[in-house]
């Protein structure tokens, strides 16, 4: 009975107090035919030692690769202190701070997080997190529709992460919200502001503006924001938080700034971890705060006038508003947010900027090496942040498989979602990639691509001796 402390004597005493003869009797209100719920497919329990061995074997099986994939999840160095503190029992095993007086640790941390995020995005306020960047974007869309009151259409550039767009669709589709896709410029890899004319007068609630966009390419955020405002729609900035150490924050885009800023918080201290847990951050202008979903922490005072922190604006939430809530969101990603808060405190503005600069410089160094290889070209001719699209004169999927055999994850294959870009892939080298990593990638890519050029696969097939 793992984790159950009861001794036989305890059980006996407790049953006696309750006035029953057996634990079974406590289930006597359940219709008998439902009580046969024996498990058959769950294996026998293991000791911690056995599970440890099992999990180590599983982890070893997965190996460790030199990673050049970004595409929304970025490998950054995480200071050792971050998760050593986050996994302290007091943070790890506490719940939502419903009893504020007994949760000042979590609450103050979240208030600090809100301050950091609001400043990083240049917005007035922040919530205490949403589930992840993709679902956070969906929440931003819902929020814009709620706040706009009239329009239910959203302008969604095709330069937004293709899977995120699917997530938004899945979440908002049932509420009669229409996502209208804006095509990208095939030369620059971003949205040409002038091309938006066609949507004027179309009754849109919001324009989503990614910065950088999925291809790493910088969008003309000032023009796009101003255009959105000029046409009575909200501007939703979709941003990478590391990039914000270098790039203009959404709050300062155009004349009035974006209205909502949203994004994936993972780069700030969350490990890649096969995709989660991450978190979505959301910030907005003060005027929209009561439309914002998710938990929000406020500073107040106790009855002696001493400052303290508490959940606030709960009137928006589902446990009070029920069917009239701003969202059904309940939990947030508290622990990951704790990691981000500590990450930002450890890095500071200078540190985060250095991470951004080095990530960007490494990606440029990678591109320089790779595009020096015959048959490898850069697709878009426009400034980027730390991520670039390359085109190969060989099939991307085969090339990536050949790189994988050398211990290298060579990038994100764009052929499924952007077939019109040809054999393209998205590569990224964060600050964690060394010059040696980059050289290795270039060395193997050259070998693979040139081998293919000299020995095309069909030739291989016809010669059974090779």
């Amino acid at each position, binding site marked *: 009975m793992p984790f159950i402390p009861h001794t036989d004597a*305890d059980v006996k005493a407790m049953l006696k107090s309750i006035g029953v003869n057996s634990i079974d009797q406590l289930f006597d*209100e359940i219709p008998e035919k439902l009580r046969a719920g024996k498990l058959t497919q769950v294996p026998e329990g293991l000791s911690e030692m056995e599970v440890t061995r099992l999990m180590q074997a599983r982890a070893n099986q997965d190996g460790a690769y030199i990673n050049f994939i970004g*595409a929304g999840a970025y490998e950054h160095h995480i200071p050792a202190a971050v998760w050593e503190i986050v996994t302290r029992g007091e943070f790890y095993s506490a719940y939502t701070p419903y009893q504020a007086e007994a949760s*000042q640790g979590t609450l103050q941390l979240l208030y600090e997080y809100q*301050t950091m995020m609001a400043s990083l995005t240049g917005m007035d306020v922040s919530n205490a997190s949403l589930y992840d960047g993709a679902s956070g974007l969906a929440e931003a869309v819902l929020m814009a529709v709620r706040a706009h009151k009239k329009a239910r259409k959203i302008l969604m550039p095709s330069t937004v992460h293709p899977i995120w767009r699917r997530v938004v669709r899945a979440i908002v589709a049932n509420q009669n919200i229409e996502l209208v896709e804006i095509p990208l410029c095939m030369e620059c890899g971003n949205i040409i502001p002038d091309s938006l004319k066609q949507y004027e007068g179309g009754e849109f609630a919001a324009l989503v503006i990614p910065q950088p966009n999925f291809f790493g390419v910088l969008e003309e955020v000032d023009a796009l924001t101003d255009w959105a405002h000029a046409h009575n729609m909200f501007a939703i900035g979709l941003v990478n938080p590391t990039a914000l150490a270098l790039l203009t924050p959404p709050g300062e885009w155009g004349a009035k700034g974006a209205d909502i800023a949203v994004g994936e918080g993972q780069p700030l201290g969350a490990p890649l971890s096969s995709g*989660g847990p991450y978190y979505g951050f959301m910030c907005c202008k003060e005027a929209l705060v009561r439309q914002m979903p998710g938990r929000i922490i406020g500073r107040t005072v106790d009855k002696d006038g001493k400052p303290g922190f508490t959940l606030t604006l709960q009137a928006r939430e589902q446990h009070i508003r029920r069917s009239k809530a701003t969202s059904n969101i309940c939990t947030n990603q508290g622990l990951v947010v704790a990691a981000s808060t500590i990450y930002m405190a450890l890095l500071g503005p200078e540190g985060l900027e250095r991470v951004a600069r080095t990530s960007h*410089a490494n990606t440029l160094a990678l591109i320089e090496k790779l595009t020096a290889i015959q048959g490898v070209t850069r697709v878009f001719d426009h400034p980027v942040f730390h991520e670039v699209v390359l085109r190969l004169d060989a099939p991307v999927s085969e090339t990536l498989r050949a790189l994988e055999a050398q211990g290298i994850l060579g990038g994100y294959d764009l052929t499924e979602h952007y077939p019109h870009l040809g054999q393209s892939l998205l590569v990224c080298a964060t600050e964690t990639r060394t010059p040696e990593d980059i050289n290795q990638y270039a060395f193997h890519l050259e070998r693979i691509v040139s081998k293919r050029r000299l020995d095309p696969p069909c030739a291989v097939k016809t010669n059974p001796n090779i």
Partner: protein
Amino acid sequence: MLIFEQSQPNRRNYSQAPLAKAEVKDIPEKFRRKKRPLLPEVSEMQAVRHYTRLSQLNFSIDTHFYPLGSCTMKYNPRACNKLAMLPNLLGRHPYAPESTGQGFLACMYELQEMLKDVTGMKAVSLTPLAGAQGEFAGVAMIRAYHDSRGDKTRTEILVPDAAHGTNPATAVMCGYTVREIPTDANGDVEIEALKAAVGPQTAGLMLTNPSTLGVFERKITEIAKIVHEAGGLLYYDGANLNAILGRVKPGDMGFDVIHMNLHKTFSTPHGGGGPGAGPVAANDRLTPFLPVPIVGKVQNKYLWETEKTRPQTIGRLSANMGNAGVLLRAYVYARLLGREGMHRVAEFSTLNANYIMAELSKRGFDMAFPKRRATHEFVLTFKKLKDETGVSAMDVAKRLLDKGFHAPTTYFPLLVPECHLIEPTETEAKEELDRFIAAMEDILKEARTSTDVVKGAPHTLPVKRLDDVRAARELDLTWKRAG
């Protein structure tokens, strides 16, 4: 003191960022940030000390009994954390190929299989990021099912008035209107009201069983029959799964789809409010609509099943497959418990709840449903106490903090006035329950003899009772530099 108040311009951690400052020439000035963000400028030690001290201000399972009803605050085994954080598992990119994730995917596949058994369902998707997303997935699947049959008349979701607030909120997110079904005096759904409510407009019913009232819905089979005969489907809110784990399977009760809060029943950490994980399970009828990705297995290789192989899916709910690290923790927990361990969960969580209920009843506390068995939790009401002394359920809750116990859930379920919802979980020892019972008894006495002490509680925490009204009225959501 806030971290910002310890910050000094140009203080920084030299070890925590690249030592050389790389030049960035190719990003035009117009895209560049002009003013530094307000991030703390502190030393590594200052940050470590600050957040270590902050952590000590929290109550948590690792430090306190935390009988927060409906939240299942049980022990989070440390092995789950350690093993989910093995370096290779942490380092794996979500878009790394399946070939580099066979170990991880094996864990996920096996977790799916175990959850199928636990729920009595036919298929599982692990992708929902939290309970509320699991709920959303469940109702969206119900909608997709009706849509797939061209049945456009079903616009209503039935929800008992005792349901979690997320239930109606979710129904609305899925484009449904909500009709509430009343509860009778014993905590069961009013069958006649349900019969009157169902019809061709009924898309489905959302229910948790045991209900939020801490009692088992005895007429569940009849309810399922009524809804199914009206063409509706049944969604099971798995928030209370801890009460039945290894004893009763939602599939056997007649449910078509269920979500599970792994951060409750499968003991992944609550983390101060998340991350959670809310997998959904479905019977044959709803399986095609499960959200993707799902982990499949072909010839001993694990792979992602996506929109390609599951064209009727409601789609994706997150950029990747859910809160993978949380799912890994749940997997480790499930392997530690195993079959027998899972059977014990419902038994001992029920034993603990009934024991506290029995002991408190003997000490003069008023139960909301005195004639019912407690499930894994139960409701008591301080209405009489409030009327007599002015001491509210909230006052009692705050006074419990002084005595070293986290408070039960207060003022929920909404149907019971001045209530506490008490869920001890199976991992608390009898001695701890006895201490809690004694503390409650003390407070009951104090309420009559030193009313002000109770009404003024807490007295021993880092802050006294906080002004929530002011927090909402004079919004202070971010710190601003003075001047």
